[in-house]
């Protein structure tokens, strides 16, 4: 799942990005408001983690511009400003959640996970489909009680398909959610990862759940 992190304090941004990456997210990061806006125009993100006190362009302004053309991307505001008026203003501008600095990294990850799920209309942390259980909190997958050992990338694809279950997800979308802006990976990697996932699911005695839609992409469903 791909996130955009906009935070001007370098050291803080790097720690936050590192933590989120370790939690399985793909993170584009910037410390500049204008650059943040450019990222938002060029890419699609599941969640934007946004600091309000930014150089060159205020975070609220950026949020406001985002909301004029995109009402779906979840925004988590992370700021040192905690007065009631400022919180209310942030939420009115279209923030989905508000977190005051300093915060625990664990809380940051938990809130991002909740927003990610919510952006796909899913409220429980565990998603079950055809005997396959995907726990988005623990980042684990299992066939009933039997755990399925997955790499971070494999889990990310499975999570994305599960969050968009019964919807066709294009290869480009998967690729975009897996890799950050600076990565120059081969797009064939998606097909390789899907093939590996199918194999592991078959080994776990699960029915065929990942189906290919020629020319469109992949779908996670119990029916082909």
């Amino acid at each position, binding site marked *: 799942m791909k996130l955009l992190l906009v935070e001007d*304090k370098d*050291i*803080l941004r790097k*720690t*936050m990005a*590192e*933590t989120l990456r*370790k939690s399985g997210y793909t993170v584009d990061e910037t410390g500049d408001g204008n650059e943040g806006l450019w990222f938002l125009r060029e890419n699609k993100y599941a969640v934007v983690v946004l600091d309000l*006190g930014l150089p060159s362009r205020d975070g609220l302004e950026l949020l406001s511009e985002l909301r004029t053309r995109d009402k779906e991307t979840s925004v988590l505001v992370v*700021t*040192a*400003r*905690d*007065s*009631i*008026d*400022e919180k209310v203003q942030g939420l009115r501008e279209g923030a989905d959640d508000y977190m*005051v*600095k*300093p*915060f*625990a*990294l*664990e809380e940051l990850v938990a809130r991002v996970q909740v927003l990610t799920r919510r952006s796909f209309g899913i409220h429980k942390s565990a998603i079950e489909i055809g005997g396959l259980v995907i726990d988005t909190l623990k980042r684990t997958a299992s066939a009933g009680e039997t755990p399925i050992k997955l790499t971070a990338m494999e889990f990310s694809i499975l999570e994305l398909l599960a969050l968009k279950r019964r919807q066709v997800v294009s290869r480009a979308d998967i690729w975009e959610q897996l890799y950050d802006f600076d990565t120059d990976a081969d797009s064939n990697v998606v097909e390789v990862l899907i093939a590996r996932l199918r194999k592991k699911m078959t080994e776990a005695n699960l029915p065929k759940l990942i189906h290919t839609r020629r020319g469109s992409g992949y779908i996670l469903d119990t029916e082909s």
Partner: protein
Amino acid sequence: MPSFRSLKSRIAWATCLALFVVLGLGGIVIHSVVTRRLRNQFDHGLADKLRYFEATCFVKSSTGIVALGMLNDDWEALQDPADPDYFQFDHANGKSIYQSRNLLGKGLHSLAPLPSAVGETTHGFVDLPGGRTGRFTATLFYPPIKDRGQLSGEKSSTLVRVTVAHDATMLTAASSELGTVLGVVGCVMGLVILGVAWVATRTGLRPLDALGAQIDATSVGEFEKFTIDRLPNELVPVVTRLNALMERSGTTLRHEREFTSNVAHELRTPLAVMRTQLESILRNDNLPFASEEKVREALGTEGELERAVENLLWLARLDRGLDNFQSETVEVGRFMRKCWTPFLDAADAKGLQVEWNLRKAPTLACSPDLLRILLRNLYENAVAYTPSSGRVSITGTNSGEPPSICVTNTCSGMRKQDLDALFARADRRPSMENVDTGLVQPARLGIGLALSRRVASILGGELTASLTATNQVEFRLQLTQNQPFNN
């Protein structure tokens, strides 16, 4: 004078009073003048008759008898039963000489005032036969002497008083009717003028009402300008000045908010860096145990700093009134338990016994944000300063007015004279030694309780500390200005 609070009532009252005085006095004066004129006219007629009697009266020289030389028709006309005149002739000593037939021999009595000198004419009211009221005119004169049918041209020595009276029922009725007409006209005029004045007042004060409504609708912390359009000239300078003050206050408040916001940013961002860095280090599975311990200690210190910064920022904002707190219905008992949740682990780690007495906790209309700040500091204080295995008692009650919240904890070494210092701002609280265990509670920056006391005053209450008989410290919040919804 009744104390009317609104301008409209005051103006209406003043108008009523002015109308009552002006119309009342005006009516009385008109009535008095017209009545006097009518009476004068009436008396004038009587005086003419009196002069006629005087001119026809004479004394016979041969007999000394007082007689009247009047035509018979005149005589009868004067005593016409349809519109009779009553008259009588008396000697100056009151002895009757002659009286008209219609006086039925009883004469005119209680005449006052009577003339006291020759030629003087007096007027007054008199009771006539049949119980009617009449007016009389009287005068004193010396009739001429008549000798052998001829007036001699000499006055007699007999002083005669002639009195003429006439029924004055018409006069009193006219006066009474005039009074009634004036009263009715006065009342109608009063009502009309009052109505017009009321409408004019309402219309005239409408801009003031609109301005009042605008001011009333402006909540604390809002600095919207008031509209000047259609305001009367008298109010324009007031509103212009008010708008200037609002603008200045708004600018000041905005600057203060920005300043506090920037301070918060400058203080919290480095804290966030510290915390995330330390947590990031702790996430390393290969971290040596000794290093992990040091990092945890550093994280603990960062936490203390975090709370101190938070309390300082709250205190700054509350002192300057930078936040607008909305009141909500708060079930205090449930809320007090919920606010304890973050302290559960620390209380368990110290083996604290926590007693809850919340059955009589009230439901209040107050800001949950403020109540949370207050409780958090009281709880934090209780957990920090209660010795291990000590007791913390948390009570919310409405049994005795006003509603109160109490947090009591065992605390060794606290003296009565030190209690007030607990609420001093940035007072460096001394290290406290537990006499039982010998453990020393580290010194802390005492800002939390100062903040709690400030919050208590905003909530309309007072936060006090006292020592109980069992040497426990009791923090009591009494919400004197906050009425509970129920028990």
